[in-house]
């Protein structure tokens, strides 16, 4: 191809260029206007949106969690405290390699794979960059040391201190005071997110649960300006939290310890009540568990161990355990007989060792019945019926009274209902009636049922707390005191107190005298020869420095078939009868009422009464307690 012309057309080229340059400049201005338009949209139209985003970036509302109220016993001893707990936290942005860091941590501390998974889930839920997420709670001092030494090689790993609940007495108070637990997702849905922001724990059981609103306190807030790494640059303003209310319980730690020691390793429960106020002095259920385990989250194996143990340590026997009252009910059956005029003080029966309803082949035996026919208590009046715990007397009396009158009078003492004011786990037991049997069992009430009720067997069920409360009401001669843990006044308690049953005013003084005197004889009538002593005298009656009124009881676990010899040794240990002993003292100025239950303990007098005496001795004879309780009563 040949170039047509070697010369350039400068004018033409210049014109083309100018044309293109002007066009280009026009495009340039258009694109600039487009940018200005975009900025106008962001800065003017969307200004409010981005201002909000910017403030959200910069201003953090931090909740200032209140300090949970402390719990003291009546002597000012700390039962529930708040101590710093050290958590291991990770800030993802500062970590080079999260997987490697977690693997390294697993070499240093006891961090299970399940905990790693839980950590990753928490990590997904975090709200903003540079927010630290807990990996492991409650590091031991050794773990803290090991992590601290190795921290230089693990950027982003930190140890953070937080106040958490601590129970200095551990298992001793677990069933009496309850405990807090870490708030789980279910709780979080139910709870007021504002009130609980920054709070990780909530009272789940017992006093901690009932007084949760008072113990929690009121959350505070501060608005802070933070940088992108979450570092607080300045506090803009703050509303300080209001700490939770401190609670003082009627509980006596020293008595609680004594009661716990008296039970030893045996399964059972003890409830001690101050009859003047209803204040609970001791509430023991054994076996127990360390509530501190639950505070920061218990590992699965330990929890499964507690949950599946045959001894059910998590079960509160004092409040939730429902047992036959056995012979401990006899004084109240007797009281019913006297109040209704069914028997008199002097009336007697002849006890051959067994009782049989007319036109019924079933033999109801007395506890000292033998095959040889030498059993029985002979001539028995109401006093002897109580201090010897004569079954036949009460079989007879119960049949004469009928179930309706028995039910109505036992109900006055709080059976079949929950009278506890601030013990949310307390149960109602069962006080059978005609209506109950027809409704629940679909069968009519038989006279045979009434016979069993006379000695506290059959369908009737009570909790140790209910029995201790009934004894306190007896000690008060009918003046009702509902059982309560809190010693001070409180709105929640006041509301609950409205449910307290009315005082029992239909019992004449001489009947109270007679019943209490008979219960006193259970303990103090001694040296009268075989078959004439109080049932508990041989075990606790000697050397008592005060007057005690008491009653033993034995609750059936397995029914004994007709005509079969009861052989304790042949039964499995766990099928043995439960031993009861209830008491109050001193008789003329009652300061403490107690119910002792020993599961599968066997006979109430032999096994349970010494435990009850240990508790009463501790409370009444220790000079420190005499002074303390006197002061409280005044």
């Amino acid at each position, binding site marked *: 191809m040949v170039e047509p*012309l*070697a*010369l*350039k*057309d*400068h*004018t*033409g*080229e*210049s*014109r*083309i*260029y*100018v*044309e*293109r*340059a002007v066009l*280009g*400049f026009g495009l*340039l*201005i258009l*694109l*600039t206007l487009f*940018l*200005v338009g*975009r*900025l*106008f949209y*962001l*800065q*003017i139209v*969307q*200004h409010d*949106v*981005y*201002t909000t*985003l*910017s403030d959200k*970036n*910069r201003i953090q509302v931090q909740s200032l969690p209140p300090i949970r109220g402390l719990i003291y016993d009546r002597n000012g001893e700390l039962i529930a405290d708040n101590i710093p707990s050290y958590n291991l936290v990770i800030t993802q942005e500062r970590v080079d390699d999260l997987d490697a860091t977690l693997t390294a941590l697993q070499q240093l501390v006891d961090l299970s794979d399940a905990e790693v998974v839980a950590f990753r889930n928490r990590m997904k839920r975090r709200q*903003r*960059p540079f927010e630290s997420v807990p990996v492991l709670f409650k590091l031991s001092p050794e773990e803290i040391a090991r992590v601290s030494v190795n921290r230089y090689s693990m950027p982003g790993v930190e140890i953070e201190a937080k106040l958490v609940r601590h129970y200095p007495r551990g298992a001793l108070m677990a069933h009496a005071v309850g405990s807090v637990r870490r708030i789980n997702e279910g709780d979080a849905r139910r709870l007021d997110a504002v009130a609980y922001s920054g709070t990780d724990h909530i009272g789940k059981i017992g006093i901690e649960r009932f007084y949760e609103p008072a113990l929690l306190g009121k959350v505070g807030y501060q608005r802070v*300006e*933070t*940088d*992108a*790494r979450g570092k607080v*640059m300045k506090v803009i303003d703050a509303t300080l939290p209001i700490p939770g209310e401190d609670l003082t319980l009627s509980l006596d730690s020293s008595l609680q310890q004594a009661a716990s020691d008296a039970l030893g390793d045996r399964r059972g429960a003890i409830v001690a009540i101050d009859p003047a106020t209803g204040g609970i002095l001791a509430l023991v259920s054994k076996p127990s568990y360390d509530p501190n385990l639950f505070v920061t989250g218990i590992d699965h194996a330990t929890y499964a161990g507690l949950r599946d143990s045959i001894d059910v340590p998590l079960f509160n026997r004092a409040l939730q355990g429902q047992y036959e009252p056995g012979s401990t009910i006899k004084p109240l059956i007797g009281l019913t007989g006297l109040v209704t005029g069914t028997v008199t003080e002097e009336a007697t029966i002849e006890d051959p060792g067994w009782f049989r309803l007319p036109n019924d082949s079933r033999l109801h035996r007395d506890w000292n019945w033998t095959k040889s026919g030498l059993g029985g208590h002979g001539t028995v009046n109401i006093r002897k019926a109580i201090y010897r715990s004569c079954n036949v007397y009460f079989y007879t009396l119960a049949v004469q009274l009928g179930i309706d009158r028995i039910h109505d009078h036992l109900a006055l003492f709080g059976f079949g209902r929950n009278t506890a004011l601030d013990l949310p786990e307390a149960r109602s037991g069962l006080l059978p009636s005609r209506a109950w049997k027809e409704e629940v069992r679909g069968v009519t009430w038989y006279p045979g049922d009434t016979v069993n009720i006379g000695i506290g067997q059959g369908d009737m069920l009570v909790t140790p707390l209910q029995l201790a409360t009934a004894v306190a009401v007896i000690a008060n001669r009918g003046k009702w005191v509902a059982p309560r843990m809190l010693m001070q006044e409180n709105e929640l308690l006041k509301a609950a107190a409205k449910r307290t049953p009315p005082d029992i005013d239909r019992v004449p003084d001489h009947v109270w005298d007679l019943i209490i005197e008979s219960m006193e004889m259970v303990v103090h009538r001694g040296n009268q020869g075989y078959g004439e002593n109080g049932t508990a005298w041989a075990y606790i009656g000697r050397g008592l420095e005060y007057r005690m009124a008491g009653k033993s009881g034995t609750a059936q676990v397995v029914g004994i078939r007709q005509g079969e010899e009861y052989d304790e040794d042949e039964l499995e240990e766990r099928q043995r009868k439960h031993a009861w002993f209830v008491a109050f003292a001193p008789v003329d100025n009652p300061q403490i009422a107690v119910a002792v239950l020993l599961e599968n303990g066997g006979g109430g007098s032999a096994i349970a009464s010494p435990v009850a005496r240990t508790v009463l001795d501790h409370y009444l004879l220790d000079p420190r307690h005499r002074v303390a309780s006197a002061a409280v009563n005044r």
Partner: protein
Amino acid sequence: MSQDFVRQLPAGGFEFHRREAGIGDKIHVDATIVFLLLCISGYGLLILYSAVGQQSAPVLAQSIKLGIATVTMLIMAQIPPVVYLRFAPWLYVLGLLMLGLIYFVGFEVNGSRRWLRIPGVVNFQPSEIMKLVVPMILAWYFHDRHLPPKTRHIGWAMLMIAIPVLMIGGQPDLGTALIIGVSGLLVLFLAGISWRFVFGAISLMLVSAPALWFILRDYQRQRILTLLDPERDPLGAGWNIIQSKTAIGSGGLSGKGLFQGTQSNLDFLPESQTDFIIAVLAEELGLVGIVVLLILYLLLMGRGIIISVQAQDTFGRLLSGTITFTFFVYVFVNIGMVSGVIPVVGVPLPIVSYGGTSVLTLFAGFGMLMSIHTHRRITL
């Protein structure tokens, strides 16, 4: 050259606008350009001072870099355009050799080989030099040829663009490769290639855009997805763009006040001294502050275009025009990226962003612009 001179005697379209050779022409300085560069530099240093949290050390360092760049610019302005014209092919070949050398001895930063290192002397990016050399070689190529260019010449020109672009794109440095490619295409556009080519190329790009998706590396696709929906990964890939839009938007009309920007001072804004510095300006001085900067830029570019229009030969015209329009590409890409209309590519805001390399190249370009303007044959 003599032919050009002869043909030029009948006064061309703009030759009537003949000026007296002033003092500026004698020392080869264009007062308008220097004044505008000083304004933008000063404004930029102020924003930088805020972006670094009111420390003076980085501002001082940047001032020194600007000073060096200014000196370079003044030296470049003393060299007559004819020298640039003569050396253009040699520079181009040298540039390609250096780009080739990178494949053997270049060292890697963040997974891409962009740097040549002469130990103890200097580290530099050959691709940076190519930003000026590619327009130069094309201007050189079209200087002796009839315009508008013939198809054959367009083909050769495209090849001259493609070689460095592909080499740089392979480093990989897609941002720089695209900018250099665009600057090359700008030369073609200003040389007057027919509209058929222009629209043909645009339609071809639109059609091939979906295919391009499969060529892109994964991180590049992520950037596009992030642009479309920053909220898909707000703490990760989307963080930069969300925070820069927040900074810009919260600035409003007149801003939060100088040094009062929370997004930048509290470190929510990433890269606030370099690529995202416009967000600092937008947050603290608002739309007004940005418009002031844009006006300064427009004045500077307007001056560049006037210079190119007044240039006395094809080389000067095409080179000065391309330098000016490429400058705008930087401005548009940077602000577009920070305000969330185009994907994030590493392009600094001209003159304002912290860093020496980009400033040096830009000022060198303006030095050539001033050289073209002040070395006028009429004054010889």
